[in-house]
């Protein structure tokens, strides 16, 4: 009889809101992109090509191994910094984590296009204490990668 009980479902964007709210030191933004989900996600999930365009501090992002939805990647920054990232990538969802950085993207179809979420921030000891200051400072920055993606999609 329990099969008839209502169940609350959480789509990828709601799940990214959970990660954003529960992770100290990150900025989070979301925006409705006026393009179909498949178009948006096809571009965003091409990490090697699109991520350095969305995150301009990044010179390159190279997938070094992949097993199903789990991957590892090597990132290079504009100033020569390098980092190894663990990545989980599936339709509508991407989480990336290095020793000091965390990133995430999520997308769901919505009336008028695609709701797209972006998360980025630092993983540092004690970051929890700085969260009240960092979060409002970083969150406006999280909107920029989404806007860059949107501009590129519009230019196509």
């Amino acid at each position: 009889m329990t099969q008839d009980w209502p169940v609350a479902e959480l789509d990828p964007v709601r799940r990214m809101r959970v990660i954003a709210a529960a992770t100290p030191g990150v900025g989070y933004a979301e925006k409705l992109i006026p393009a179909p989900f498949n178009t948006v996600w096809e571009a965003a999930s091409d990490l090697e090509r699109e991520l350095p365009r969305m995150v301009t501090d990044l010179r390159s992002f190279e997938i070094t191994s992949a097993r199903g939805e789990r991957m590892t990647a090597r990132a290079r920054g504009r100033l020569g910094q390098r980092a190894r990232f663990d990545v989980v990538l599936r339709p509508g969802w991407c989480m990336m984590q290095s020793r000091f950085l965390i990133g995430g993207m999520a997308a769901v179809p919505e009336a008028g296009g695609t709701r797209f979420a972006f998360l980025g921030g630092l993983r540092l000891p004690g970051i929890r204490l700085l969260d009240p200051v960092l979060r409002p400072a970083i969150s406006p920055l999280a909107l920029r990668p989404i806007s860059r993606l949107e501009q590129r999609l519009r230019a196509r």
Partner: protein
Amino acid sequence: MAVMTGPPEIDPALVRAAQRGDRIAVADLMDALAPYVGRVCGPIALHDGPDAAQDALIAILKNLRGLRDPGAIYGWARAIAVREAVRVARKTARAAPADLADIPARGDPQLAADVRDVLARLTPEHRAVLVLRDLEGLDEQATSALLNVPAGTVRSRLFRARRSFRKAWLP
């Protein structure tokens, strides 16, 4: 009476990795808990279920370091999910509270047919009793402990509820 089979086991190593701050592990743990939290929040918060499940998972993941025994994660998450679902549902609950006597008897065949209608006529607190008792299979004592209500009160209320329900449906 069919009580739902338990949710899939969660690897204690995943919980510990998430507690240490591994954010990939935190996301994996969220994915593992989301169906269970959704089943608890859905019948209590109804159309506010996704908001309740979202808030419940935030509270669960934020407080993860406070969980000492990873093997107890479902019971611990359930308490948080019920609390958050009641809180969210209260915000939009109808002003006039339903009669607790509307709660049907556990296992009553009428409940299967009318579950959504029955749930909608109850207050969030009453829906929480129903979820804990029928969906989770908790006894009155465990239900009262989780909802912070005396066991005797839960027992007598359920007795009256069953009697009233039978009167209403089976005259």
